[in-house]
């Protein structure tokens, strides 16, 4: 029996309440296990919204999203949250680390909501941090450099060995060299844990890093309405 794809999106539509136009419209998108895909599109084209829909943080108007074979939006409330915690890793442009907590605690926060036994949390977090080059796991994250914070964020995303990692403009806050390093880390980490990677970016230079590049415009079916991005979104 073949493993289900890491991500499968079919006829997905999303619009904000009160709006008459779709912000996201994806006819079909399939990402296999361990595959890395770059999603491109202009700023405000709905890339981040799509990732949040995949993560189950927002509900679509129509369509289905399956992650590792599970239909995300068929899961209710807490079950969806737990599924996200264990099957989906997220890396953000601004890292979104928990302020006031150490690097290890940030990684362990991801493990809190997983089925990983508590006694393994600390060891696993320290090991992961070491893998991404953080040797001071107990240092509070605001005392780490920007690059180190990005590494902690990557370690946190990989902590539960998710089926897929969603990286939302992960290099947008970094200079080119740091961005390259961050992408190396994200891609190598995903590869090492066998996770698929869906990365969004409006940076054309990122294309060379991915064998597969998808444009949001191209993902919508020609017969259907083109997505209209809200001004300034």
């Amino acid at each position, binding site marked *: 029996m073949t493993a289900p794809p890491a991500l499968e999106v079919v006829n997905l539509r999303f619009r904000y309440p009160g709006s008459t136009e779709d912000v996201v419209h994806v006819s079909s998108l399939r990402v296999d296990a361990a595959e890395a895909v770059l999603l491109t599109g202009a700023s405000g084209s709905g890339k*981040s919204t799509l990732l949040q829909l995949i993560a189950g943080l927002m509900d679509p108007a129509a369509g289905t999203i399956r992650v590792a074979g599970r239909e995300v939006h068929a899961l209710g*409330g807490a079950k969806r949250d737990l599924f996200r915690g264990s099957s989906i890793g997220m890396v953000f442009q601004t890292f979104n680390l928990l302020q*006031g907590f150490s690097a290890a605690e940030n990684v362990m926060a991801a493990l809190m909501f997983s089925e990983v036994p508590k006694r393994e949390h600390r060891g696993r977090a320290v090991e992961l941090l070491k893998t991404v080059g953080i040797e001071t796991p107990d240092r509070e994250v605001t005392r780490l450099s920007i690059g180190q914070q990005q590494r902690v964020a990557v370690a946190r995303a990989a902590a539960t060995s998710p089926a897929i990692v969603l990286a939302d403009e992960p290099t947008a806050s970094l200079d080119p060299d740091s961005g390259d390093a961050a992408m190396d880390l994200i891609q190598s980490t995903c590869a090492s844990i066998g996770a698929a990677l869906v990365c969004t970016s409006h940076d054309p230079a990122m294309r060379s890093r991915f064998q597969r590049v998808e444009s949001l415009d191209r993902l919508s079916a020609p017969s259907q309405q083109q997505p209209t991005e809200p001004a300034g979104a």
Partner: protein
Amino acid sequence: MAMTDFTIIRRSMTSRMFSTVTTIVTVAVAVTLMLTLLSMRDSGRRAFERGTGNMHMLISRDASPLVSVLNGIFYADPPARPIDQAKLEELGDAFPASFFIPTQQGDSYLGLPVLATVPEFFTRFSPDPNFNPDARPDEPNGSPWVFAEGRAFERSFEVVFGARAARETSIQLGDRIVLTHGTDVSRKAADRADLFEPHVHEEYEYEVVGILEPTGSAHDRAVFSDLTSSWIIHAHDRRKLEDPDVAATTEADLIPADRLVTGIYGRVATRPGSNVSAVIPSVLSGLRTDPTITVAQPKEEIDSLFNIVSNIDQILIAMAAAVLVSSGIAIMLALYNSMEQRKRQVAVLRVLGCSRGRVFGLVLTESAVIGLLGGAAGVLGALIGSQTVAGALRARIGLVVDPVFEPRLMLAIVLGTVLLAALAGLVPSVLAYRTPVAKNLRPIG
């Protein structure tokens, strides 16, 4: 150590240390106030009730029955106007007495009040209202005085120490002491120049022959001396004024003007098994026809006092409850204000797999923990505060109050505080529950 919900709660509290501490202090003050008031109210009433003992009446020449009780039983101030020997004998014949115990106050030892009295004070009178000195041996009875060490005075110039008085002065059996004329209270009231150089009856030493067990009454901090000895030392002062060369004074030198008392503890004879008598009202009525004396029924005076005080109590307790509610509002405001800063944290936790319900629970638990810490600090504060108040009562009016905290009451107030705090945390918890994740993950600015 793995991250737990309590790690998140602890960090949330410590990251806003000032706000957290001030909120906890606010709760603690309210709980302290509430517990102290409740404890002091009950303990105070018990202390007052114990102090009146088994007497039916207190006769003095104080200005009012209440003043008479406060002075004659609770050592608030030495009675100023004495009763002479002739009146004492006249009163002694006025009713069928179970006991008729003259007392004299006015001297002190190291600031402790001295009550000069007769040996019947230890055999007939008792601080226990249920003690009937006329009860048959086989009859259920209250407690008489109990000596921790030694015995009652039997001869002149012997003294007995109350339990607290002995403890405060570290006195031992066989120690010899001299008494001081007047008390701190009386000297201050009279604005006497000898406040810091009081007259000491140094010609006459007393021997400590007994130390009493605690009774929980004001008598615990008194020193009891023989009445005749007290007359002698004061007669000696009188005689020294008349003749500076006078060597010593004995009972034979006493004149009627020396034989003064300041109070009389009286009890009407009762039937076995009873502490009341049908003749008490008529005895009191008869005595009250004499305008030169004040006749007080101690129990009634204390009841009247507490009827007045209980209204104030209720107001104070209502105020303490209002402060407690205010502290709940303070918790709500502190958490509510912090929610703006915590939206991103909540959003990140949600991304990591934390459910809305768990986020709700985290904030609610944090609120309850603040309530619990405030409640616990309040209990500690009440234990210290009530001792301070008890010390002040003892020092100022001589009332011995041993604050007693009912464990169930303390538990109920702490649990109530936690519940109140949890209620106060509902609004911030709902805010956390409803925090939009996507919106709060966006880059700032």
